[in-house]
Structure formats: C-alpha cells, structure tokens
C-alpha cells in the first residue's frame, strides 16, 4: 500500500515534485497546497486528480488525518517553514524540507541517505538545489584527502528561479555552505549562486572548487569523482561532468552540468530536478520504513 503525501508550495519545485511522485511505487501524492489560486501548479494538480487548496498550510491541516497523510513536502520559503513543520508534525506526519530553512538534518542522498535509515527523523532538510548538485562532488574529494576549503558556484537560468528562490538567496548561500562542511566534509564552505537570463535558457551549471590540504592525489580524486557521478546519475541521469578535472596547485575544480527530465519546466531546469529527485528518493526511503512498520511518524518524535 502506498504512503499518502502532500506538497506545500505550488511553484516550480512543488509542481516538478508532483510529477515525480506520480511515478513513484512507494508514494501517493494526494494534496497540493498553494497560496496563489491562479498558480499553474494548483491547476496542474487539480487536472491530475489531486485535492488542492489555495489557503496555504491551514487549508491542508484539517484533512491530514482523514486522508492518512504521513509525508509532507515543503517547497515554499524558508521564512514559513518552521510554522509549516510544526503544524504538519502535530498531525503525525514527516516533513521533508525543500527550502533552505534547514531546521532538520541535511540529506544529500548519494552521500548520506543511509545515515537517515532508521533515524526516525520527523524533519529532514534537502539543503538546496546547488547543494544537491555539488556536495556529492565535495564529498568525492574529501573522502580521498582533507579539503581545507570547499566552494561552489551554482548558475541557474533566471526562468527556473521562482519567487521562493529569489526571496531566499541568503538562505541558499548559508545553508549550502553549512552542508558543504557537514555533509561534504570540507573544513570551511562557501556557496555562490548566480541567475543568468540568457536565451535560450542555460542548463544548470555547477562549479566545485576544493582546496586540498596537501598536494591533490589526482588519480584517486578522478576515480572517486567518477564513482560519485555514477551514484548521482542513478536518480538524475542528466548529471554530467563537463571537463577533465582541473588541478592547479592545491586547487581542484570540477565542472558539472545538470540536465533535467523536463517534468515541469524544460530540461534546462536541472536545478529543479536534482532537488525533487533527491527529495522523492529520500521520501521513498522513509515511505518504505513506514510501510514496513519500522517507523511510525509521531508528533512525539519531533525535535525540529
């Protein structure tokens, strides 16, 4: 039996996420929640047979128990996440945070999904689109040798960055930097995001710069990066290394491109895909834990 889910946030990310959940064998998307009654996401959700509300999270809460909603995704904005999370957890549902609020632990599936297995977490944070695209690469280097400093530059097409992203630019840089350290393994992290309005829209690009403590072990790093790219490609097939890794003194620079599946926005919006694919993968793992009886979401377990 599938686990029933709700999505809060009918913008680019929420709408793309819905398409992925519709294909899931584990999860069943039941509700789409928004605040703008004219939003494209709500219209698409309605057309797909989901229940919808334009009254925000308060339009969802009264129906959660009767619809057996056990997993909720928040794709709105960092500013309202805590409120959403508290309300959802009170209904004994797990909150998957796709905003940069990061009140729960970071999850970057190819790096640390297994750590979350059995952890009975009621709130899990998916970092940021840039974080999902780059932290696997930082980790690929840091598991070979110490990375003193890890810096990422995420470049996204202006069309793929909705109002939520634009209001949360600072949160993006802070949360991504924190996860570069905590999950990526760099001693110090920095994240930069750039929006480019070029036409035709640019495919998401990410540059990962690492400063290693000692001279980079080139062959080991290349092998580690190649292996990790394979891991990411399992759920984002359009994730690819663009150039040979650049080694310049202790600087290791990795250039990746993220092509999306085109579920909602066209394929250039790989930034949406990597976020929603990571979130749905994480949710599927949690869903399997719930279905097997190993995890019963409960307000009592909530710490975030």
């Amino acid at each position, binding site marked *: 039996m599938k686990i029933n889910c709700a999505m809060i946030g009918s913008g680019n990310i929420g709408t793309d996420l819905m398409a992925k959940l519709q294909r899931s064998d584990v999860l069943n998307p039941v509700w789409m929640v928004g605040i703008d009654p004219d939003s494209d996401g709500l219209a698409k959700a309605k057309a797909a047979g989901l229940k919808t509300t334009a009254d925000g999270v308060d339009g969802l809460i009264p129906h959660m128990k009767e619809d057996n909603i056990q997993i909720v995704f928040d794709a709105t904005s960092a500013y309202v996440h805590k409120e959403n999370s508290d309300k959802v957890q009170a209904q004994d549902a797990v909150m998957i945070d796709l905003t940069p609020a990061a009140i729960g632990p970071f999850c970057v599936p190819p790096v640390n999904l297994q750590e979350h297995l059995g952890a009975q977490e009621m709130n899990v944070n998916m970092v940021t689109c840039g974080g999902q695209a780059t932290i696997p690469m930082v980790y690929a280097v840091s598991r070979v040798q110490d990375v003193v400093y890890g810096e990422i530059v995420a470049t996204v097409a202006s069309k793929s960055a909705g109002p939520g992203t634009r209001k949360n630019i600072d949160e993006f840089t802070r949360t991504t930097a924190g996860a570069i350290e905590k999950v990526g393994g760099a001693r110090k992290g920095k994240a930069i995001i750039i929006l480019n*309005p070029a036409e035709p829209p640019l495919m998401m690009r990410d540059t990962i710069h690492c400063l290693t403590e000692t001279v980079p072990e080139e062959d080991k790093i290349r092998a580690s990066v190649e292996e990790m790219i394979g891991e990411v490609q399992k759920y984002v097939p359009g994730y690819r290394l663009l150039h040979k890794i650049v080694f310049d003194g202790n600087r290791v620079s990795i250039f990746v491109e993220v092509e999306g599946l085109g579920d909602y926005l066209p394929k250039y919006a790989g930034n949406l895909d990597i976020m929603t694919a990571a979130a749905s993968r994480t949710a599927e793992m949690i869903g399997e834990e719930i279905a097997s009886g190993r995890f019963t979401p409960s307000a009592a377990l909530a710490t975030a």
Partner: protein
Amino acid sequence: MDLKGKKVTLHDMCLRDGMHAKRQQITVDQMVAIATGLDDAGVPMIEVTHGDGLDGSSINYGFGLHTDEEYLSAVIPKLKNAKVSCLLVPGIGTVDQLKMAADLGISCVRVATHCTEADCGEQHIKMARDLNLDTVGFLMMAHMEPPATILEQAKKFVSYGATCIYVTDSAGYMLPDEVKEKVSLLRAELPAEIELGFHAHNNLSVSVANSLAAVEAGANRIDGSAAGLGAGAGNTPLEAFAAVAERCGIDTGVDLFKLMDVAEDIVKPIMDQPVRVDRDALSLGYAGTYSTFLLHAQRFSKLHGIPVRDLLVECGRRRTVAGQEDMIESIALDMLKERETA
C-alpha cells in the same frame, strides 16, 4: 546643454573596483592613504570592499589580502567628511555581512544584481533601510537589456526601499546615446526624490563622455576611480571627470588639484600594471564582457593556452553575467576541446 550649477556627487571606486585591478591585494596602509587623501580632496563618498562586494573573498573571485572587516575598521575612523559605502551582491554576500559593515560605520550600501534580477535584492534593500543606510539599487550589465527592462527592475528596487538607482555599465560597452536613453527614462518615470547614478568602465575609452551624458540625462551621482584604478580598463578616471565637470560648471565640491595629486602620487604607484585601454581591456568593451573577467581570463589563458581576446569575446557571445568567473575557465576548456578535435 547647460550644466552650470548642477550638483553631482562623486563616488570613488578605487578601493573596491580597484581591488579587481590589484587581484584583491590592496594593503590596509594603501587603503588608508588613498581614502584619507580622497577625503582631504573633498571626495564625498568612497567605496571600500572586496572587488565582488561583501564576502566576495573566494577562489572564484580571489581571496582578499584582508577581510572587509579589517579594511573597514582601518579606514572609517580615519575619515573626517567622506562617507563610506560597501557593495553587496546577493548570491555572494548576505545581510549578515551588511550588519557587520553597518556596525563598523558605513553610511551607504549598493545592492547589486544583474539588471533583470532586482528581486533577488529585496531582503538586502529592506535590511539596509532598517539599518538606516543610504540604499542604492545597482543594476549591473545594463547594456544587456532594453530601457523598458531597466526601468521595470529599477521600480522593483524602489518598491523595496532603495532611494537611489544606478545604471551600471559593468562591461564598458555603452556609448553616450544609450546612456542618455536609459538614464532619461529612469529620470522621467521614477519619483523625483529617487537619486540616479551612473557607473562606467573605460573599456571603449568613453567613460568620461558617458558620465557626462548621464549627468545631462539626470544622474546626480557619478562613480569613478582616482587614476581609474578599477576592473578592465578601469572606471571613469575620477580626476579627469572632475576636471571636465569643473569646465562645465558642475558643482562636485572636489578640490581638483588635490584629487589629481592623490591619483598621481598615491594610486598610480600601487598599480601592478598600467590600467589602460589595451588589447585585452578593449576586447571587454567590444564584446560586452564583464570587466572583472580581465585578470582571470589572463590567468586561465596562461593555464589552458587559449588567447585572452578569443576567450573574452566568447564570454561576451555567450552572454555571461557578473560573477561568472568560473565560466571563463569552463569556456577556455570548451575552446581547447574544439581546437584539439579540429
């Protein structure tokens, strides 16, 4: 046009944009010497930050010799009249650094976005107003969009609380007619109390003419750098503009000879290379490429073997925007691949 008696505020950039020309390696002593010299010459506003704004220190843009905190702490207490500003680029720096800078005594912040992305600066402008700072919305690469778009984005900045809007010719691509068109439109359509500013780069050698056109069209703030120390072929040379302003009867409040002395005796000696319209810098203006790409392109050219001009022109062709220094290297690697397979 009669500009007699028009008041224009000069805003010096050599301790921020100049950081680009110095690979972010200006020393604290040099900053203090230049800032106090400018202050003494009557320059009313001086920008002090890493070239890419607050928290710009990075692999991508170059690590600063000192932190913004160290520079601001050293300079601000030494100034008698001049007000200090910082640049803040959403996506690079955050409101946390803005608060730090405000605590250290800056009076003004320029929140800089690409000229189509003003809404990324909403939280920064609102924070700046909460901190009682003179708040500027800085629209970068303004040559890349038509006047109507520049106006639309300017209005967004104003709606968040900005009280001054800058048309920024980051690539030194514009010519006087375009400057006039864009600044005039803003002057006509924005509320009268909103100040207008213009920031030029000298890549096509017309920065002074452009700045004059901006003033004619209604700008009352002009950015420039003593001795032009800035990215690319430098900013509008402040002392040259000040001389032209004096000829036109524009009131800048600046002591021209003292400003010339600062440029010649204090700024020029610290240059690592002459800041001029040479082949590489001209390529920036010609191609519409962000001026800060100059030294990085030269570095990647050496590392990967692609001629600088080819690299800069390609960056322009691909419509790269501010902050995309990583793309310079990626484009160099693309070009290398093409040349290897050819």
